[in-house]
């Protein structure tokens, strides 16, 4: 499966702002299943916007996004094809880490509860699992959100600044878990960050 962008341009950005971009306003940008993409840009250059456009949660763009096949229902796309780590995480602070995972997993029942526990154990201290997520540190929350992004079938995994609040050691553990799941599902990985990340073996590094 491929996702192709044609002359994509956020409506709230000028053409001069987008000059020199490898993606915006390019006639034919292809993201292909099985490949790993690094997208670098300074803040305010439309990293999150790009992922929101692809995920379908924002339509404030000109140009077209082609998913290669007819997408009738955006909700099917979100459950079967695209998984997304939101920059603002979109966790439910009143629920525990495990409940947050369960809420996502119950849409597709993709993971068993043993698998959920194992993934969470790899990234979070044991005593934090039963606390409301609102009481966790930002870095811990970010890890919970990464695990949640893995609780569904996907062909494209999009991570928006996944390590912005995580130290190097924890970042390695997160990267390992992500790589394992991406390889297992044969999916594409699209990661955005301010600077290039060396924790994933990227096939393509692009400037936005």
């Amino acid at each position, binding site marked *: 499966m491929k996702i192709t962008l044609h002359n994509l341009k956020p409506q709230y950005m000028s053409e001069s702002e987008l000059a020199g971009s490898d993606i915006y306003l390019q006639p034919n940008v292809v993201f292909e299943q099985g490949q790993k993409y690094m997208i670098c840009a300074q803040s305010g250059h439309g990293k999150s916007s790009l992922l929101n456009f692809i995920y379908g949660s924002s339509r404030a763009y000109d140009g077209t996004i082609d998913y290669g096949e007819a997408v009738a229902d955006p909700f099917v796309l979100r459950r079967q094809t695209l998984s997304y780590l939101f920059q603002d995480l*979109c966790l439910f602070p*009143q*629920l525990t880490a495990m409940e947050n995972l369960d809420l996502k997993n119950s849409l597709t029942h993709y993971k068993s509860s043993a698998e959920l526990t194992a993934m969470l154990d790899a990234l979070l201290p044991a005593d934090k699992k039963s606390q409301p997520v609102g009481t966790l540190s930002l870095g811990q929350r970010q890890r919970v959100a990464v695990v949640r992004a893995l609780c569904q079938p996907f062909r494209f995994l999009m991570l928006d600044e996944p390590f912005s609040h995580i130290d190097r050691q924890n970042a390695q553990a997160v990267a390992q878990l992500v790589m394992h799941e991406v390889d297992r599902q044969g999916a594409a990985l699209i990661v955005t960050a301010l600077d290039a990340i060396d924790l994933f073996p990227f096939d393509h590094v692009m400037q936005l």
Partner: protein
Amino acid sequence: MTLHKLQRKTLIPAQIAGYALTLFVGVTVVILTFQLYADIRPMLTQQTDVFKAHTVTVSKNVTLFKSANKESVYFDADDLEALQEQPFVKKVSPFISSSFNVSATINLGNGHRMGTDLFFESVPDEYLDVDSEAWQWDSTSDFLPIVIPEDYLSLYNFGFAESQSLPVISERTLSQVAFNIHIEGNGARRTYTSRIVGFSGKINSILVPQSFLAWANRTYGAVAHQRSSRLLVEFTDASDERIPAFFQDSGLNINKTELESSKMVFLFRFALLFVFTIAAIVILLSMAFIVMSLNVIVQKNRDLFLNLYNIGYTPRQISRYYQRVVSLITVVDLFAALSAALWVRQYYVQKLTHVFDLDGTVTPIVVATVILTAILLAAYNILIYRIIRKTVA
């Protein structure tokens, strides 16, 4: 269910309780007034009163002078003609009265009999709305149907029975009692079996079919020439304002109960309609209340709904919990309201059943409640989905 746990916390119990209470009160009162009207309606319309509307009885005023000269209470041909000429009078029919001896007896069992002397009058059959099968007589028949004034029964039920601690009797019960009528005159005598087939609120007399009285007066009557002290006058419009003035000036007495009771019926209907309308408004307010509460929930938890939407929940899935809660509360509430209304009805039926014949069924209100439930559920389910879809998408 993690989703339900999450959404349960967004509900506002006090607002839901407020909705349940107002809906309960509104629906109970609406159902009850509706049922009360259905139960009482037969008594408000012609069924209890055998006379047609727009018809009154007219007699001459009895004064000290006239009581000395008995002839002056009768109407002569000139009087009839004068009345007939009035523009508001449609038809004038004199009463015929019996000119022979009448008595009634009833067997009380164990050899005892109770009897009383009576008199009969008659009016043209077309003025009676009684069941025409019961109101029939021919010279070969041994059965004689009669109509008595409603006031006789009221006098017994509300006066005599009350003071003597005797049971009250309904019109239907009394209609089932058979008794004997004996007529006598010109040296002949005959006995009929009889039953009361109707009650009149408009005329204070004991009525028999006119064909019978005409025949009996010829056969048993003492006087060949018939005189009438009372007339039945049919108006083109009973509310014509010239009517009271004319009868006042002519020294005629008009039976006003009919005009009074139609005023009562109007007031009763108006009162029921008023209560019904207020209760219907209460139901609408309760609906507005729950919709406002849902809007508050959505406004307060906008981020939560957006997060659910972002991680892949559809508006339909997000709505489902609220649809179920509101539907369940509404169904339970309406069922409780129906039960309460039926309970109250049972109470008033018990009180009234001795005096009136209540034979209304409760099927209409049960059906109405089910339909109301269906309408409310459909409205809420669509509305909740729309509110949530508008918020997230």
